């Protein structure tokens, strides 16, 4: 696997767009196989449909005319000719009645199943790859492309094959007929094949132009967003930024026009050549037929008419054939991203069906970790041991590595060196889903899903008896007052993503809903990353009391830069520049009088009461 990836990477570096012909075929076949495995009767019937349609098209539009002309010239009676015509029409209608059930009634089901299969495959993979993938722009870009294009491209492959079948059947049938009339005519039909080469060239130029414009697209899109997204609206009104943005936009437009001009002439010429090819061929073939009929008198009028009538079709279908490979190549490029993503092996060590994670001693052993693309490691040789049931506070300045440490403990990233262990066994040896279930985590940048309140709290499918559980949890996290007032209580959908009656929570309310999760289960570990950043002091205070209560027997790890909460912890880890520099109880650290104590005093200073205030308070409470 590793070798293969390396090889692929090398190829990529040489020319990101060049795929070998073999790979092009293999990618397209991959898609067909995939579709076939989901809906086995889809492709056979689909292709039967295209063959049938192509044959009917030939019979009705080309062969029929020749038959009529021939029979007329042979002096057959009108009844015979009309009978044949009516017979064909009836035959066509019967075929249509039968076959039209496919696209109208049968295929929607297949197609939806195929989308579902493809998307689910992507979802599954997306949840399995390590978080680092999201930070790797190249990977992420591929992934987004795969997500956006997978289904559409898969269907496009089918359509291209369909077009291919149609063209082949038409060419073979019409070609055979023309060959029958005069073998030389077939030679004329081959001319457009040369034009296929020009077409290929044209595609290459257009691809180049497309690549060059992408940078401009990005600039343009960004400026557009700053003008219409809500999040920029205030600043765009209050400051001079619109002028700055318009300048970027104007520059992009000038660059665009320069780019179009640069390629304009080339594209015009190429298009002219490829477009006029079929006109030229048809004219030549018709000229030839006219010559044989009128000058050398070796062709009957009937045949001449047939040639006039059908030579266009062959030329058109041959041009179409020339496009087919370009189309396959184009599909293959997108499918390449899709396959790359599907075949990507997550770098996160995992043992499916491994040990079950339970409460125990959680340790970080000499963890060092660097984010992709970062120069400095975010964590440097961090070791710590957390005993079951301990309450741990991680404190420190922004960027000191607190959140990173937590993410590694959660096994979202693989460390550069060192390991996370539970009861002495590395995280990778546990079953991934049991590891996940062992932790209840509320992140600083928690997100509300477009699910019901209850589902947002539990973040798992609902079961019987969950209603009471969720209600209780919301009460303890302080969100109940808000939820109680909602139309459907805890079953109200949050966000307006797809429910216009959905409730939109403020940041503080959303945080309370997120925090409620910790009250709904008794996972051995609870991790809270800046749990109270958006809460007002009273809410914060109540939440902390409730949380400590709920975590009496559980391990609680919380990150905070408000040191007032660190006081409640059994042990405090003070982090600086990716390392733990001080460790101990609040009292011990204060006594040590190091960086932690300094920071704490600084924060506390503003809260220290003056004599007057104390007197007032005591006076007031009396």
């Amino acid at each position, binding site marked *: 696997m590793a070798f293969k990836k390396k090889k692929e990477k090398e190829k990529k570096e040489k020319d990101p767009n060049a795929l070998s012909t073999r790979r092009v075929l293999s990618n397209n076949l991959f898609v067909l196989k995939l579709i076939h495995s989901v809906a086995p009767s889809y492709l056979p019937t689909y292709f039967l449909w295209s063959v049938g349609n192509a044959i009917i098209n030939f019979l009705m539009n080309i062969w029929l005319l020749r038959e009529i002309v021939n029979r007329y010239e042979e002096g057959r009676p009108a009844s015979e000719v009309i009978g044949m*015509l*009516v017979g064909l029409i009836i035959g*066509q209608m019967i075929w249509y009645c039968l076959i039209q059930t496919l696209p109208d009634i049968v295929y*929607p*089901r297949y197609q*939806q*199943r195929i989308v579902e299969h493809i998307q689910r495959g*992507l979802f599954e993979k997306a949840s399995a790859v390590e*978080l680092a993938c999201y930070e790797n*722009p190249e990977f992420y870009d591929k992934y*987004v492309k795969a997500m956006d294009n997978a289904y559409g491209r898969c269907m496009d492959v089918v359509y291209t094959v369909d077009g291919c079948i149609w063209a082949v059947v038409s060419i073979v049938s019409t070609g055979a007929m023309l060959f029958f009339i005069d073998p030389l005519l077939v030679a004329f039909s081959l001319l457009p094949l040369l034009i296929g080469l020009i077409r290929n060239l044209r595609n290459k130029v257009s691809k180049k132009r497309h690549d060059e414009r992408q940078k401009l697209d*990005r*600039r343009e899109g960004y400026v557009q967003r700053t*003008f*219409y997204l809500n*999040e*920029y*609206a*205030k600043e765009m*009104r*209050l400051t*001079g930024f*619109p002028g700055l943005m*318009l300048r*970027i936009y104007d520059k992009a*437009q000038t660059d665009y026009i320069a780019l179009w001009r640069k390629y304009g002439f080339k*594209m*015009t010429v190429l298009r002219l050549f490829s477009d*006029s090819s079929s*006109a030229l061929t048809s*004219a030549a073939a018709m*000229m030839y037929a006219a010559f044989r009929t*009128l*000058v050398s008198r070796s062709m009957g009028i009937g045949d001449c*008419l047939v040639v006039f*009538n059908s030579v266009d079709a062959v030329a058109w279908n041959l041009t179409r054939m020339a496009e087919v490979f370009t189309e396959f190549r184009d599909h293959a490029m997108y499918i390449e991203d899709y396959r790359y993503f599907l075949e990507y092996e997550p770098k996160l060590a995992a043992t499916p069906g491994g040990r079950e994670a339970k409460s125990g001693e959680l340790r970080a052993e000499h963890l060092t970790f660097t984010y992709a693309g970062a120069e400095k490691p975010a964590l440097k040789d961090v070791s710590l041991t957390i005993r079951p049931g301990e309450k741990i506070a991680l404190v420190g*300045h*922004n*960027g000191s590595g607190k959140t990173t440490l937590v993410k590694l403990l959660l096994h*979202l990233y693989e460390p550069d060196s060192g390991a996370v262990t539970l009861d002495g066994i590395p995280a990778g040896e546990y079953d991934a889903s049991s590891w996940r279930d062992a932790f209840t*985590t509320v*992140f600083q940048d928690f*997100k509300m899903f477009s699910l019901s309140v209850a589902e947002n709290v539990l*973040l*798992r*499918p609902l079961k019987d008896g969950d209603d009471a559980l969720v209600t209780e949890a919301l009460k303890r996290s302080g969100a109940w007052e808000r939820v109680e007032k909602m139309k459907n209580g805890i079953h109200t959908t949050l966000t307006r993503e*797809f429910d216009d009656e959905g409730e939109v929570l403020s940041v503080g309310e959303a945080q309370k809903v997120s925090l409620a999760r910790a009250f709904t289960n008794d996972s051995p570990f609870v991790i809270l990353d800046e749990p109270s*950043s958006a809460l007002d*002091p009273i*809410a914060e205070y109540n939440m902390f009391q409730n949380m400590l209560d709920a975590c009496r027997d559980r391990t609680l790890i919380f990150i905070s830069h408000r040191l007032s*909460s660190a*006081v409640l912890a059994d042990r405090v880890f003070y982090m600086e520049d990716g390392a733990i520099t001080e460790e101990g109880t*609040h009292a011990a650290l204060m006594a040590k009088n190091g960086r932690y104590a300094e920071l704490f005093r600084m924060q*506390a200073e*503003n*809260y*220290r009461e003056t004599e*007057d*205030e104390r007197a*007032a308070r005591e006076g007031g409470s009396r």
Partner: protein
Amino acid sequence: MKKDEKKEKKEKKIPLGRTLYCNFLMLSKIWHMTPQYIVFMVIVGLVGGAASSLETIFTYMLFNALDEPGVTFGRMALYLGVILGVNLLIGLFYAWYYEYYQTVTDKKLQHRMHEELFRHALTMDLACYDDPKFYNDYVWAMDESKGRAVQVLDDTARMINYLITISTLITLMMRVDVLVGSILFVGAAADAVLWEVGNRFNFKKNERTKPLHRKNSYVNRVYHLADFAKELRVSRAGENLEKIYSDSVDGIVEAEVWNGKRRYGLDLLTEVIDEVARFLPVVLLLFKLYDGTAQLGAFVASINIIWNLNWSMYDLAKNLIRMPENARYVEKYLKFMSYRPTILSGETAPEPLETVEFKNVTFSYSPIEPEEKEEKAESEKEGEDKPQSPKNSLEDVSLTIRRGEKVAIVGYNGAGKTTLTKLLMRLYDPTEGEILYNGRNLKDYDIPGLRARIGTVFQDYKIFAATVAENVLGRECADEDRDAVTDALTKATFADRLAELEAGMDTPLTKEFDEAGVNLSGGEAQKVAIARIFARPYELIVMDEPSSALDPAAEYELNHTILEYARDKTVIFISHRLSTTRMADRILMFAEGRLIEEGSHDALMRMNGKYAEMFRLQAEKYREAG
């Protein structure tokens, strides 16, 4: 729910007249921006129609000529030459037009349209953003603006082309045989009717599947946005989402099959009509052939016209499908462009700030779409599922801020603190009461002038994809600005980080269009945002929770610096962290949109009211340990 559906239908069903009118409006818009484009569009349509008519006529003559006993090869070659010539010329014209002329002109047009859209967007009241429906339409209009104008142009050109071609073909056929011509005409008309019925079917289906597709694309988005990646890994939320996904797939299948069954009958009917309209003429022509009233060449020529007519009709139908879609875009676009802001600038240039006074100000966020006021009134009358009347964000607030004061506005989340700022900046106007600037209504003043005197750092500030200096200045950075930028960044305690940046203040921020761009951390970005107010000579500075992303040490340092540098300025701090606001001259305590307590920290502590309670609660934990 039912109402919603009705509304959507109302919005979506656009009658044919309106469709044409909308397309026309778009064309006249384009005419104003790039008149040459319209001229060329008409030429493209006319030339295209003329070329295909010519081709058909000459092909017809070509076939007919074969019937003549004494026809020469030379005449045939001439006909063929004309056909080829027409084809090559039109090919050349198209190649130049589509690959060169259109790409460039298109960009010019788009540029002008977008600039107009952008400028218009800036005049929109902020309240519009609170109205999801208006906002969605607006975003859609913006997104679509890229290709739609050209689409309208191209479609119109094609329409001209097809109409010319089809009328030529039918006229030609009428001359050959009136009956056949009439059959073709009736067939075409019947097709159009069936096509419209089919459209209605599809429309119904789309109405059913639209919300389902919306769900699916939401799930897709959740999986590919980095924002959700962590949550999906640490919880089982994926299972819920996949359930939503498969449920809506089931729903879509059901709707598609339901529609397919209805369509099936329609498709069969269309097929029968098509075949009859196509082959009945052939049978009639055959009779004529056997009668001896027509010869073989004429017979094939006529059939050729019928075939061609068929193709043109098919093309026309395809083209027609897009027209209502275009019209829908134009409607939204026009609606947006005709939007007039309700927050209007006054004419007086504001003099230096002396006092700002809120007099019995009440405010509620009630997004009202200008054009839907009527509908709203209607639905209110109906009284069913009326949205709970929006709570007032501010309720009868009166306060005065004098020059040089340092005022803190504190309170719990949702107390109306930020709303106050937004009113002051005239992003919204009060629902009741008035705001006085130096004793005169704020509405009398020129808005840009006001905003040049009042600077704000919002909680949800944004960093733009521009250099550090440009981000501070909000415009291009000239040489003489550089000192001011350094100074502002230093005051905002960003100097250390600035020294680390390789290109200093010229470092591009965000990776939006520069791979070498720097992504600042939350705290750093906030400092840059704060530097903005130091870079300009504001008289009143509003800090809306400016330090929420900063750690305590930075917060402490920053608050002191701000106070120091802003000694001669008026400053309003907004916060729920009372440690940061304690140093203010005056503290205004808000609760549920009302001003409940006011005074210095000491006075409020002595008063022992809500403020004192809140302060103690925050201080308590520090005190116990300290």
